[in-house]
């Protein structure tokens, strides 16, 4: 026979304290709600809720494509936002890659990067830059119909606390709101996973800064969607073939 430990009063107190602490653990981590959700929501739906169907890491879309198109081998995934690759959701490193089909995630149909003034002389971007091969044009978002701009813009990449000017250009003209200033620049240097890319803008008349809400740079896209056959599209997620 097993010997049961019968609680005396002292033990009862300890059990009460332990129960209280376990309740704190349950409350702190919302475990009652989570238990309910685990019971009521299917695993795949929970995955979609966490990683997004299309947007963020788009794991839901990847799984959907793999299942619906019965894909056995690996697909190349081009994600226009910077996070760890979502390849884990569908690919097996032991399999071969399919050459002529691939997936584009968070694909920007209009590849505009907006830079905002930090009021310390630098302008910081609003989204990641991936798979760009240069600049088409830039434009200014003004809170005025037009202004005279006389100055220069430097595009800077910072690595190991060292700045590198990857491109610079001068402007000396009257600019209308959203007027395109064509700047034919070809380079992959703008793409960056870790190193910050920002602008340094110098104006002769510093009072003009207050009229510029943001500076937008329209980028050349390495992967032009118009050159591929779209097999499946959901919002900014594409499954395409060459």
């Amino acid at each position, binding site marked *: 026979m097993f010997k049961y430990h019968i609680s005396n009063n002292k033990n009862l107190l300890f059990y009460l304290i332990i129960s209280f*602490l376990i309740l704190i653990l349950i409350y702190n981590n919302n475990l009652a709600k989570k238990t309910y959700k685990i019971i009521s929501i299917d695993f795949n739906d929970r995955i979609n809720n966490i990683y997004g169907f299309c947007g963020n890491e788009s794991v839901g879309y990847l799984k959907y494509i793999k299942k619906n198109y019965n894909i056995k081998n690996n697909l190349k995934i081009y994600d226009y936002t910077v996070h760890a690759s979502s390849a*884990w959701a569908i690919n097996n*490193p032991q399999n071969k890659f399919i050459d002529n089909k691939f997936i584009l995630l968070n694909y920007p149909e209009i590849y505009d990067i907006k830079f905002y003034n930090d009021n310390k002389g630098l302008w910081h971007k609003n989204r990641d830059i991936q798979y760009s091969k240069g600049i088409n044009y830039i434009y200014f978002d003004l809170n005025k119909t037009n202004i005279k701009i006389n100055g220069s813009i430097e595009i800077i990449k910072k690595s190991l606390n060292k700045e590198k000017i990857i491109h610079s250009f001068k402007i000396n003209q009257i600019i209308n709101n959203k007027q395109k200033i064509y700047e034919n620049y070809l380079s992959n240097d703008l793409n960056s996973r*870790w190193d910050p890319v920002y602008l340094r803008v110098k104006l002769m008349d510093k009072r003009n800064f207050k009229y510029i809400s943001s500076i937008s740079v329209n980028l050349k896209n390495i992967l032009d969607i118009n050159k591929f056959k779209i097999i499946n599209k959901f919002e900014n997620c594409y499954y395409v073939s060459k």
Partner: protein
Amino acid sequence: MYQNEILLITCEVIFILLMLSVPVNLLSKNKYIILNDSSLIDRLLINFIVLSNILLLSSIFNIQTLFILLGYVILIFYIYIIKSSSIKKKNEINFSYLIIFFIIILISIDLSYELFFGWDVKWHIYFKAFHFQQNQSFANLINLPINDYPHFGGVLWSFFWKYPFNDYEYLGRISYVVIYILSIFSITEILKIDFLKSAILSILLILITYEYDLLSGELDILVFSYLLIATKFINYFFEKKYKKNNNLIFIIILMIANILCWTKNEGLFFIIFLFISLILTNILEKKQIFFLIIGLFIIILFRYGSMEAIGLKHNPIHYELDRTLIFNFSDFLYRTKLIFFYLPIYLIQNILYLIVLPVLGYLILKENKDKRVKLMTLFLIIHFIFIYFVYFFKAVDIEFTIRNSMKGFLFCTLGFYIYALIIYMDKKIALINKN
């Protein structure tokens, strides 16, 4: 088909605990006196360490995990069915241990809801788990991303993912929950107080340290837990009755060293620091020091030798020495400033560090004759020098690296520093008992 995941989680936890119930029972308690004194948690942890080593070696020598499972099934059948009558007579079951089971289930529920992977997990650790879940060979690791990174975390994950259900990946990660919870319950047993009292302290430690990020597949939690277990067993060296009869403790510690060596690159350094501190504490005999050094040497040789054998070499890109070593004096100041700026921030962010470091400081000032305090002091010094150099020589943006990794890096060794709190409480309890 709809599955009740709560039931699956419960069955998975029972399966893991069943796997951890053998094989230490086969050892003679007369030959290894530590087994006479060891608690149920200690025995479970020794079995965990044995199983970890078996799984690691099977992954390296391409032994099918099914054979390991079968071996365990036969062993469990033999011990609990054939020899069951003798077990019942000798052992009594303390049902208070169900508290541990319940906490493991609760944390596993959190895991199964949150699900998301950490950055490194998506990048390479998940692929390693998937690799072994698919019965792939050690040599094929070469096809994986970051293939020179130790793979044990993936091996452990894959085994419990595959068995018994071969279903959701997170079931494999429940093994991380089990070792995390058991290691915390184990360290508080040093206090030699009732289980219920030590359970209160353990749950408090869990409340302070637990957050889902630890279970996102990152390996910090394994390093934390194995270091905590190593600390627990090292503590036996400070007890008089284990001065001589401690062969099993040495073997356990070396097995932990082997696992840490294959879990994370930092794990190898931490165990070396622990061994150096232990040797400099002057509690070991020359023969024991020799045994420890030779053991560690074989472990390191085996790791690098077996990786070399399949063509896995450390990728020099990780170090980028050409970028790292070219710096001038302003760089030196910049890097140093960043490290000294962020280190206190991340120490403060972890409430437990905020408790254990002042306690350790108090012990260093007031109890510096205690050899356990000497051990901790030596480890503290080596560890903080190591932190400085690790971040100083990072090739990529240091600030970015610190912000992304320092929290996890500090968490790995937190397990060892909890020991300071335990020593402090041990002394206070001894004082109370004396009065």
